[in-house]
């Protein structure tokens, strides 16, 4: 198991302070007002037969004097639908992104504590805000080393707070030595999600506040052949390996079994320095791509070693990408077998 370097810890703590200091995100209104059809579906799915949620005549005789919505539905009203558009100032997502970049790529929900100030009634229109409460770590857990990220969300009707929720996740780096698979442990809890679960982003929405990191397991995985295994072994080890002919020394990417220059079948590799320049790029908007949220950037990067390597370009707004932009390699673990190479802008002083 690798442990976290002090500089990484400092960077995560700094990011947490920055995001926490930004305070509450802008209010995000629910797509629809509180409405009976959604209540009907929800109580049916949950198995709650209390007629105060569905039967007007009964509800009128109750302490509420009319139909009310189940308080636990608070989060339902502000879900983003099948294709959620996440607010740019969403603090949970921002923190997840920081931890992803630091290698803490898996997530499991640990706490969800809701406080109901009053019942909601059909026709009321709620909005939600979220702030980052704390980020604590690194902690050693059975799942792997990770950080507990706690957010607090508040649902409002107008200026009146109606519901609050404390939500905590463990964002962790999967322990390779552990026999506990992240997907198995996630399955033990109805409120847990894991990047190793095969569920798509839309299903994880139900159990996390606002759809944190897209589940990387949904990413299309490359076919490993005998000719290309060295490359994927390299990315898993944090190396960008470029095939080099064992006979004539020619570099080649993508790799293959026979040198097209000299015919040798004795390939070796070198480890690239990991820097390059954007040779061309695409901003993908449509259609949806498994395991990614649109828009995202894919860049073809030319290395000083003389080959080009394609990968997602992270940590830069699409409009800021330029041909010729200096970038450096980073690695995105998908699962135990596959780590993808990706790119990010060269950082000052790095």
């Amino acid at each position, binding site marked *: 198991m690798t442990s976290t370097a002090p500089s990484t810890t400092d960077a995560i703590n700094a990011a947490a302070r920055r995001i926490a200091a930004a305070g509450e995100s802008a209010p995000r209104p629910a797509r629809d007002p509180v409405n009976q059809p959604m209540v009907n579906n929800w109580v049916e799915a949950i198995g709650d037969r209390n007629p105060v949620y569905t039967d007007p005549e009964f509800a009128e005789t109750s302490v509420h004097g009319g139909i009310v919505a189940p308080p636990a539905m608070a989060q339902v009203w502000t879900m983003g639908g099948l294709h959620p558009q996440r607010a740019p100032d969403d603090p949970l997502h921002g923190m997840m992104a920081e931890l992803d970049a630091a290698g803490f790529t898996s997530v499991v929900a640990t706490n969800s504590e809701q406080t109901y100030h009053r019942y909601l009634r059909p026709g009321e229109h709620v909005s939600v805000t979220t702030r980052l409460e704390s980020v604590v770590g690194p902690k050693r857990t059975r799942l792997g080393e990770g950080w507990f990220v706690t957010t607090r969300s508040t649902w409002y009707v107008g200026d009146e707070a109606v519901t609050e929720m404390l939500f905590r996740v463990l964002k962790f780096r999967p322990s390779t030595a552990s026999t506990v698979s992240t997907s198995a442990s996630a399955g033990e809890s109805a409120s847990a999600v894991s990047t190793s679960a095969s569920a798509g982003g839309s299903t994880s929405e139900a159990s996390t506040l606002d759809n944190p990191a897209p589940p990387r397991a949904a*990413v*299309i*995985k*490359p*076919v*490993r*052949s005998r*000719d*290309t295994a060295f490359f994927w072994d390299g990315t898993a080890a944090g190396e960008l390996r470029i095939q080099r002919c064992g006979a004539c020394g020619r570099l080649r*990417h*993508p790799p293959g079994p026979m040198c097209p220059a000299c015919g040798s079948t004795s390939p070796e590799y070198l480890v690239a320095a990991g820097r390059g320049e954007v*040779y*061309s*790029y*695409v*901003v*993908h*908007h*449509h*259609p*949806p*791509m*498994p395991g*990614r949220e649109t*828009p*995202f950037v*894919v860049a*073809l990067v030319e290395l000083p070693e003389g*080959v*080009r390597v*394609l*990968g*997602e370009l992270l940590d830069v707004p*699409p409009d800021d990408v330029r*041909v010729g932009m200096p970038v450096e390699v980073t690695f995105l673990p*998908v699962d135990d077998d*596959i780590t*993808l*190479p*990706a790119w990010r802008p060269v950082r000052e002083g790095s």
Partner: protein
Amino acid sequence: MTGINGAAAIAGIGATEFSKDSGRSELRLAAECVRAALADAGLTPSDVDGLVTFTMDTNTEVAVARELGIPELSFFSRIHYGGGAACATVQQAAMAVATGMAEVVVCYRAFNERSGQRFGRVQTAVAQQPTSSGVDNGWHYPMGLGTPAAMVAMFARRYMHTYGATSEDFGRVAVADRRHAATNPHAWFYGRPITLADHQASRWIAEPLRLLDCCQESDGGVALVVTSAERARDLPHPPALVRAAAQGSGADQFVMTSYYRDDLTGLPEMGVVARQLWAQAGIGPDDVQVGLLYDHFTPFVLVQLEELGFCPRGEARHFLADGAIELGGRLPLNPHGGQLGEAYIHGMNGIAEAVRQVRGSAVNQVDGVEHVLVTAGTGVPTSGLVLGRDG
């Protein structure tokens, strides 16, 4: 002149309607368009002894033969690489006819590409085949590059960077196609032209490609009857002679992702096709009156104009800006509306339009047609044809 020039001709064309939901099986579409093409040629299923289609077609030659009641086949062949196969089906048929392997060969392509499996979606399965193609796709799909539009966009961005082309330059191709489609009753976009402003207002699909840079997705089928020039002269329509037919693959070729060549601003595989076409036909770009250039995505139309020699490298945007590809221009392009305007039948509807232009029966007929140039899918190993008038 080399061997193929003038040996064979397209004697019949047939198609289903072009729609977004055919409501019937792909095999039925294939059977319908083949039957229509045979009727157009004045032939019957019992005259057919050869069938050619794409490897991507889901209708086997024997299944089509069964539906048509074609008794025996002495020649059957499939061409690979998606839309790059289109013109090569005719090349295969012409070679079979010229060498006596078959007398009447029907080329067909039929699919429910819109209501069934859509090529514009991310096709996860193709990245996970245990084949060399699967390995190739593993350098792109997992990294988020998983649609044809995005794969072309990577080339387009570099082309813009190198030559100063703009989104508007790409848009002029779409505007011309849609203007031509607007007067073609068989086109999906019949009566619905667009302006350059419409193009510029259309949403991003994969920057720098907008929605209106991307061809439609269509249901339908097209078939072409190829026989010897000699026999074609006895059939109802004037023959569209195969003056040249070629395939091409370039150095360090990939399928849609040839990103590792020195230069990303050309389509060397189309250059391979072009050299053969001009040599076989004994003509050059100045001798062509109509172009049916494959237009699944607009940027590659510009690159094709350069590879085929209609203008110098990097200057297609000036060629377009001068109105050259409109009806009445230097090279009227896709008078049927192309795949952006008429339908996306994997390039086969472009060949049918080329035949109509040679016959003089097209709805947007160009005057004085002697030679028509047709190309197949771009970004992939591809093919091309020159069709010409008899005599």
